[in-house]
């Protein structure tokens, strides 16, 4: 994936071609596997002539660069002139393309770059490769220079976040080669201590901001020491300074501490990520100037080099942030969000409800409603209808994403939904929902995932013993469709044909679905209740029919465990995310993914569709959340602030807000439109595995490993926040610490961790979990 980005960056003129090549229409089978586009910004680094247009935005232009020119020396300038580098880059790209048998692309690229004569100039790598480790042998070493050049280029306002996927594992030696230039290892401690003393001596208002430097510098310096085989020094360095780091980096430090040899760096993906992605810091201009001045005075080139090469400092004008503000946003694997990333417009509004003529079956209504107030109900219905007619300005075009046609059964379901929603209970702080707990008994197999259908009629559980079980949550039993031979005998003209096709003999309260060969980590029902998706450790996502209770398709693509999957609210599409660090968008009738959302630096742990089906949100072990546009595969929102892997996500019903829960026991609330964190709900003491908004969005329910369900006043949390475009510009707002006020209720189960939460259409809260007898 990252190569594609690089291709685009290096060759902006060919962007159209590649874009056309890459963006397969959603509903047609993609030609190649690379169907999705990386979120990389269009700005490019090495194309000097394009620069002026790109840097049109004054503030976003990294203003530090004006000064950086003096200090930053591209590490490999010795390797050759820029012109030559470009050529090497192109050669590398060509070789990659050839290796992947993309001959057409090779031809085009070669023609346009006038490179006919240079394709076999592999001799270059000897002269220009990184020091010491010229073991790449082929294009890899060239690639290394490409990446190094791009990473080190001082002008790069926005380096793309280079991403690995299984297609192109960047060679480790390449990635690490930048560490080969080194100072005196014995001085590292002196450098670090010097910076530490400086930061501790500056004014309080700057100290918090500059303290952010500690962690990335610490890691990079440690890795440099390790890379250069100064094992004992590295250990001493680690022991001396690891205690200074923020507690939320504990997990990463644990990985680091085991790493003491150069060989260990190979194959450690976490550190590759750390190296390849530049750690993002957000620092106010004043603080930055202070730092720069200090480093210049001291001629502390070692640290300055690291800052230049491995860090990205996002400078903003205005007051320096406080410690708590910084803490609320930091913690992710690769630093904070760059403000530019969240500038893209997101159509978070809901799609217009399709016009459905509600049959005026008043007799039916009256049968259900003894009071018989058809008049009142009618007006309500009308009001709902009128609301949906008005087009939400924030909503995407109705056909922005091709959606499946509504079937008759879907319309019936919509009508049912409307009827139910008229009986919905209006929740609020004074009117909390009842909670009905579905506990799984005797689940020795390990309950790993649960899902309810939207109408709460079915319940599916995924188990660690590879089975998926479906229960009926209503007295109605589950029945299979009759076999083909039997179906032939049925009178197809009869009115109750749908009833006749069901085999009464198979009626039972639950059905088992066998097919996976590893623990099932995610299950999701289709909105029409005909299908069930399950994702498993065996690397597949399976689609099951709930008519025949058999497996229909096994979607293979993730070669590693698939942690989560989720159906689109309109059906047909679904998204999955797994250990291979990408999320994939699929359509049920395609065996290959339509989009691959790559960008996360670690496992994608959970995936959810936006209510309007135009966006997909993913949470990851790298402690970040990304919102992806289904249409073009771009990452349109990037949220940092969690201090642990994210295990649950939920959109508010109006599509405006997002809630996320992680292993750190905190729930964070996000404003999607402005790309801001707007709330933090503290209280849980263990991983939050379930989050759900009530049907009207007034209440947020969270369920956790600590055996509690907590209800939060989400209405208040959202209303209290004054988010406008101005606050969005600064990228941060002061967060009140009001978790206690927002907590409406807390319900303990005795020994049942809460795995899933679901609000019925009438706002009864259903919770599910496995009773743990120990």
């Amino acid at each position: 994936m990252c190569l594609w980005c690089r291709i685009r960056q290096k060759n902006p003129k060919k962007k159209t071609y590649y874009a056309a090549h890459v963006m397969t229409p959603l509903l047609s089978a993609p030609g190649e596997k690379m169907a999705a586009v990386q979120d990389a910004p269009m700005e490019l680094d090495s194309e000097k002539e394009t620069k002026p247009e790109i840097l049109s935005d004054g503030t976003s232009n990294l203003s530090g660069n004006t000064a950086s020119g003096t200090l930053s020396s591209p590490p490999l300038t010795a390797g050759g002139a820029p012109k030559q580098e470009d050529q090497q880059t192109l050669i590398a790209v060509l070789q990659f393309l050839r290796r992947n048998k993309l001959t057409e692309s090779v031809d085009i690229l070669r023609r346009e770059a006038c490179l006919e004569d240079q394709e076999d100039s592999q001799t270059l790598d000897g002269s220009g490769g990184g020091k010491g480790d010229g073991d790449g042998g082929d294009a890899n070493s060239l690639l290394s220079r490409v990446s190094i050049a791009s990473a080190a280029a001082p002008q790069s306002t926005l380096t793309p976040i280079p991403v690995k996927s299984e297609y192109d594992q960047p060679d480790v030696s390449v990635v690490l080669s930048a560490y080969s230039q080194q100072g005196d290892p014995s001085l590292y401690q002196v450098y670090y201590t010097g910076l530490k003393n400086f930061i501790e001596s500056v004014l309080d208002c700057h100290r918090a901001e500059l303290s952010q430097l500690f962690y990335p510098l610490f890691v990079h310096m440690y890795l440099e020491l390790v890379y250069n085989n100064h094992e004992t020094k590295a250990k001493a360095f680690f022991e001396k300074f690891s205690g200074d780091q923020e507690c939320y980096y504990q997990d990463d430090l644990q990985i680091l501490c085991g790493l003491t040899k150069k060989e260990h760096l190979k194959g450690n993906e976490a550190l590759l990520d750390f190296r390849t992605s530049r750690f993002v810091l957000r620092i106010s201009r004043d603080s930055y100037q202070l730092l720069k001045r200090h480093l210049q005075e001291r001629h502390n080139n070692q640290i300055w080099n690291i800052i230049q090469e491995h860090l990205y400092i996002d400078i903003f004008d205005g007051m320096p942030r406080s410690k708590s503000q910084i803490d609320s946003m930091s913690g992710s694997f690769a630093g904070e969000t760059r403000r530019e990333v969240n500038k893209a417009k997101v159509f978070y509004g809901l799609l217009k409800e399709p016009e459905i003529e509600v049959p005026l079956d008043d007799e039916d209504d009256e049968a259900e409603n003894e009071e018989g107030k058809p008049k009142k109900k009618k007006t309500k219905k009308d009001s709902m209808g009128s609301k949906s007619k008005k087009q939400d300005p924030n909503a995407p075009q109705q056909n922005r994403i091709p959606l499946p046609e509504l079937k008759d059964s879907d319309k019936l379901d919509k009508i049912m939904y409307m009827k139910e929603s008229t009986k919905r209970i209006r929740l609020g702080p004074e009117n909390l929902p009842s909670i009905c707990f579905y506990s799984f008994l005797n689940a020795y197999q390990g309950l790993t995932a649960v899902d309810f259908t939207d109408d709460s009629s079915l319940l599916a559980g995924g188990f660690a013993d590879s089975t998926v079980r479906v229960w009926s949550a209503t007295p109605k039993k589950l029945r299979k469709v009759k076999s083909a031979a039997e179906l032939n005998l049925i009178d197809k003209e009869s009115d109750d044909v749908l009833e006749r096709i069901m085999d009464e003999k198979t009626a039972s309260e639950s059905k088992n679905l066998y097919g996976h060969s590893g623990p099932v980590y995610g299950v999701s029902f289709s909105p029409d209740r005909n299908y069930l998706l399950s994702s498993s450790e065996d690397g597949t996502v399976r689609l099951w029919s709930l008519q025949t209770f058999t497996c229909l398709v096994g979607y293979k693509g993730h070669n590693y465990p698939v942690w989560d999957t989720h159906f689109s609210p309109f059906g047909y599409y679904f998204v999955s995310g797994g250990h291979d660090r990408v999320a994939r968008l699929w359509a049920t009738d395609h065996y290959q993914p339509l989009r691959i959302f790559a960008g996360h630096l670690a496992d994608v742990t959970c995936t959810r569709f936006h209510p309007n089906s135009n966006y997909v949100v993913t949470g990851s072990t790298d402690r970040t959340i990304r919102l992806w546009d289904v249409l073009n595969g771009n990452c349109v929102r990037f949220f940092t602030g969690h201090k642990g892997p994210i295990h649950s996500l939920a959109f508010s019903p109006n599509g405006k807000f997002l809630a996320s829960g992680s292993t750190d026991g905190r729930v964070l609330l996000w404003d999607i439109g402005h790309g801001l964190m707007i709330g933090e709900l503290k209280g849980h003491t263990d991983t939050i595995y379930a989050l759900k908004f009530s049907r009207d969005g007034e209440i947020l329910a969270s369920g956790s490993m600590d055996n509690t369900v907590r209800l939060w006043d989400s209405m208040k949390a959202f209303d209290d926040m004054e988010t406008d475009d101005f606050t969005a510009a600064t990228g941060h707002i002061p967060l009140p610490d009001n978790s206690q006020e927002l907590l409406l209720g807390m319900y303990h189960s005795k020994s049942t961790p809460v795995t899933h939460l679901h609000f019925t259409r009438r706002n009864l809260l259903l919770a599910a979990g496995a009773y743990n007898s120990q």
Partner: protein
Amino acid sequence: MAEERRQKLCSVILPTESMKAIAESVGVGSLQEESCLALSEEVSYRIKEIAQDALKFMHHGKRRKLTTGDIDHALKLKNVEPLYGFQSQEFIPFRFASGGGRELHFYEEKEVDLSDIINTPLPRVPLDVSLKVPKEQQKTDSTEPLKAVKPGQEEEGSIQTKGQGASSAEVKGKEKMRMKPRSTHELSVEQQLYYKEITEACVGSCEAKRAEALQSIATDPGLYQMLPRFSTFISEGVRVNVVQNNLALLIYLMRMVKALMDNPTLYLEKYLHELIPAVVTCIVSKQLCLRPDVDNHWALRDFAARLMAQSCKTFSTTTNNIQSRITKTFTKALLDDKTQWTTRYGCIAGLAELGHDVIKTLIIPRLSVEGARIKAVMDGPVVSNIDKIGADHVQSLLLKHCACVVAKTRPLPDMVDQYKADYGYLGTMLCSHVVKARAQAAFQAQTVNRTTLTITQPRPTLSMSQSGLSASSGSRTPNIIKVPSSLTLMSTRPGTPTQPSPPATKYIVMATSAGAASTQQVITLSSSQSGSSVTSTVPSNPTSLQPLVKLESGTTGAVSGSRPLQKYIVVSLPSSSSSLENKGSGVLPSSTSPISMESAVKLERSESPAANIQSPH
């Protein structure tokens, strides 16, 4: 501190010796020290890596415990063959042995007999996963939250501690449906101390302490967790002390019952099955004290009867029918000719406390019969002092309770002759009582005075000389209610001439007649009774009425000195005539019993631990 821990983590590396050992195990003889070091570092690092991956699987498996399966999956991620079949029951399957200067760890494998495996029954199939939903909630759409816990700082703290406690209301609310395994409610240390203090004070010798303890029971609001313990304490205490005829302790226990009933925060209904039998025992037991002629066990009966009446009033419902069942029990005993005076007294007291209606319908019609019985004792030949006292008490009891009822119901002219005609022997006295009662009622609306129970007897000292009865008879059947004279419990003093055995040997003989008809009668009576009073009284199994001899060679009990104590309990069913006689005398009839005793003893000596013996009557 965190730093220290981290450093520690950092330095954890497998010892080089294990590398050597592993190398040897795969046939690499001599491994250089440097290679070992390099290997151990590498291996340690890889192991840490795998552990970190395994943690991911644990998190996604929604568990808190890392399993071997997680590690297998992590290995699979790294394209390493997972470790199949390395699941051991024990934590570390290796055993250690040393000898000959060598230390050895080995894997212990037991030899298993194949036939054993084949012949062992298959283990039970584990239960399948099932889904549990609170049914009553499934359909409700009520907006009332299950258990509202208002968020608040202090409250939250308390909730958290509660949540950890054994039985919190919140937990019950939500988990009601899945509390399948019976949970033991453990008392906290403080509660245990409290319980110990209270029970000791209640049955101890210090009256001031007792008053305090009873006060505490009657008023403390937080005793519901200890209620089952108290109720068991009382029921067991009565069971033991009735056998030992320890009147004082019985009184103390009844006072505890009273205190529990007085506590407004306790609801005793769930424990009536233990309390009512205990109370009824104290009302109708044939013997409650060691010296029936001197001790005032009558007061205890009165007191218990009042407790009974109170619990009937409080807890009797149309479903449990406590009052009617209790009434039936009393009446049946009263109607029985063979009922002893003590029991008779208890029955009458119990009935009388139930109210005027009960007196009117059940006691007054019996007045003439009872009168004749009393007359027979009073005027007849002096049989025993005890009978006389009993009759005397019954008489005054009848007069006391009946007088006011009669005064209310009977039209005015109180003619002695009329009374005599109506009520027989008691008529004369009743008449004077009625006249007095009428005068009193006219004088003032004075309530029937309720005597408060006072201890009229010093706490009996349990000494060896008192026949060693203080030894607890553990083999007593659980049936406390020996209601209508179906069984007689008596003891022979050790000094009985027929006993050649050492003084510590003790016989408890429940004598009976051999008359088949009468035996039959008794059994049916008692069994029918147990049928009628199944829930509230102790489960009285009719088999306990079977003649039974039990040998207890025990050092149990307080008297267990250095000598082994031998105890015989001979139970048999009473005959119509002789048993009455026995009851009257309180001592075994010297003519018949010794023979039976002899035979019983002989049988015992012939090493039968529990022999059924037919009494030779």
